[in-house]
């Protein structure tokens, strides 16, 4: 896969391209959506990716971290990264003023197997920050609506204040060409306009034919267990359950060893794994 960043004999695969922070959109507490624009026009035009891939984001003088891409490749020009302020690198990123330059290299990882998924129903199951990579797939599917049969989004957050992309997703409630199921664990004020309860409860609200459906799952570790159990009950075969699983992806190119699980590197063999892969790799879920 050459994405305009593929290497020639003399290229340094670790050297980032400069990108400018053109917008910083506050999300929930400690989460922001950063819009980045690659400085070099040729690199910018050639930068293509698939939902589920990630980039290595560098802050000059601080370091580098893997961040999944939240924007859809159908909307070119900027790359959107949804970041939680959680470590040294992201702390530095949140302090950077608008228009600052950062470094980007990638995209890396396998991304979702779109060629296989086409023509099927798409069931997106997200929990918490798991919406960050799945948002790319969601908009890819909605922008290429004819590529998929039914599109269903199931997304759960603890409370409404912690739902990522809340306002954007609430607008999907009115769409007739998809089902948008947004749930919060608790709604003490009784103002949440959609479902209440854990994300697995949403499975009772619809029927899909598991033979022509791909489920794409991303969320906190505990969620994989419950969601995969539900999907198996619904007779999904294990290779139709796709999970975005991440580890410490430091180099992004399968060299530094940190994201190794069993005999797979999450950075090049993943981060999208089938449930079958996941249960056959030690330590995976």
């Amino acid at each position: 896969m050459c994405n305009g960043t593929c290497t020639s004999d003399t290229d340094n695969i670790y050297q980032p391209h400069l990108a400018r922070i053109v917008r910083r959109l506050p999300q929930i507490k400690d989460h922001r959506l950063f819009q980045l624009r690659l400085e070099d026009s040729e690199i910018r035009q050639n930068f293509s990716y698939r939902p589920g891939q990630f980039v290595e984001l560098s802050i000059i003088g601080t370091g580098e971290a893997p961040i999944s891409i939240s924007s859809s490749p159908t909307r070119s020009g900027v790359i959107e990264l949804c970041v939680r302020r959680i470590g040294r690198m992201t702390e530095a990123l949140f302090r950077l003023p608008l228009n600052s330059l950062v470094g980007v290299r990638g995209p890396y990882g396998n991304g979702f197997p779109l060629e296989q998924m086409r023509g099927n129903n798409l069931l997106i199951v997200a929990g918490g920050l798991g919406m960050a990579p799945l948002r790319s797939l969601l908009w890819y599917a909605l922008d290429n609506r004819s590529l998929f049969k039914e599109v269903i989004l199931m997304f759960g957050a603890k409370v409404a204040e912690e739902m990522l992309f809340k306002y954007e997703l609430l607008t999907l409630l009115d769409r007739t060409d998809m089902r948008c199921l947004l749930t919060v664990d608790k709604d003490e004020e009784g103002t949440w306009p959609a479902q209440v309860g854990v994300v697995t409860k949403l499975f009772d609200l619809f029927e899909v034919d598991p033979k022509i459906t791909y489920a794409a799952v991303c969320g906190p570790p505990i969620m994989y267990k419950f969601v995969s159990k539900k999907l198996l009950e619904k007779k999904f075969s294990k290779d139709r359950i796709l999970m975005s699983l991440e580890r410490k992806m430091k180099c992004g190119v399968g060299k530094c060893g940190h994201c190794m699980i069993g005999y797979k590197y999450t950075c090049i063999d993943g981060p999208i794994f089938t449930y079958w892969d996941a249960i056959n790799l030690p330590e995976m879920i």
Partner: protein
Amino acid sequence: MQIVKLPKQNLDKFIKSLSKFGQIYAPIKKDANTSLFSKIEDSSQIDLGYNRTLLPPKKYLLPPIDSMFRFSAEAGYEEVEHGVDEKSILFGVHSCDIHGLRILDLVFSGRYVDNHYFTGRKNTSIIGLSCIPDDMCFCRSMGTDFVENGFDLFLSDIDQSYLVRIATSLGDDMVRASQSLFKEVGKEEIEKHKKKSNEMQKHFKTDIELYNLPEIMDLEYESKTWEEIGEKCLSCGSCSMVCPTCYCYDVFDELSLDGKTGERKTRWDSCLFEDYALVAGGTNFRSERSARVKNRYFHKHRGFVAQYGKPSCVGCGRCIQSCPAKINVVEVITKIRSDAYV
């Protein structure tokens, strides 16, 4: 392959003649028990009777700390001049270590090619040397006691002379540059070499059984043995540092004092270090020492086999020699194998 003979009395002259092909690095004796690969200024320093060097020659191709590129607030990211264009010669490399470099080649090639590594590799010629195994060597088990490529020249000791295998055009240039030092090889020397190779086999005291080991590793994934080793292991990472095939590295940004410029660097890392799989937010995917030990063995003898078709261990014995807790890879694998047959 072309083969010539180098009488031992001509060795010193030959080494001197090599200096026009690049800077020579060869084993020297640091003290009674320690040998090192070192930059050679004077050929009399070289000690060709060494068993194993403290660090394998990977230290030249994958330096313990290395620069990836420079950065500055104004210019962004820019390539550094590495000096890897200088030619060098690794002289006296044992067969296991040549295999070790070839394993590193596998890792740094593939879909994403680390050109920095390969520039260094292309500019480094390898002159191999035969050896006599000691009680920690298990290269025979790993199939690395002989090597058929990955060197320019290979010197095999046949008592009064070295039998020299010429594997590359560069190796041929080296021989031709001091042609008068070399003699033709006769049938007698070939026989002598074969005899020597057979004799070498008698020195092996250590073997492990590789047959169906990946399968056994899977079967013994939950074995208590991993916890026992985890109890002994100090997580010091010595085994990784001295391993010719361990390649894991950490990445860090080093700022200069003005705070405006700096370099991104790599530094050897070890999967045994506590923070190896620690991510921002505090999740550690391998916080248990036993999980880290198991991961190391799994990667070498199960994962790497699945990925590249052979284990990433060359049987050099360095990890056995360097482990302060006396964990011995041969014993661990034997134990795991016996666990499977209980």
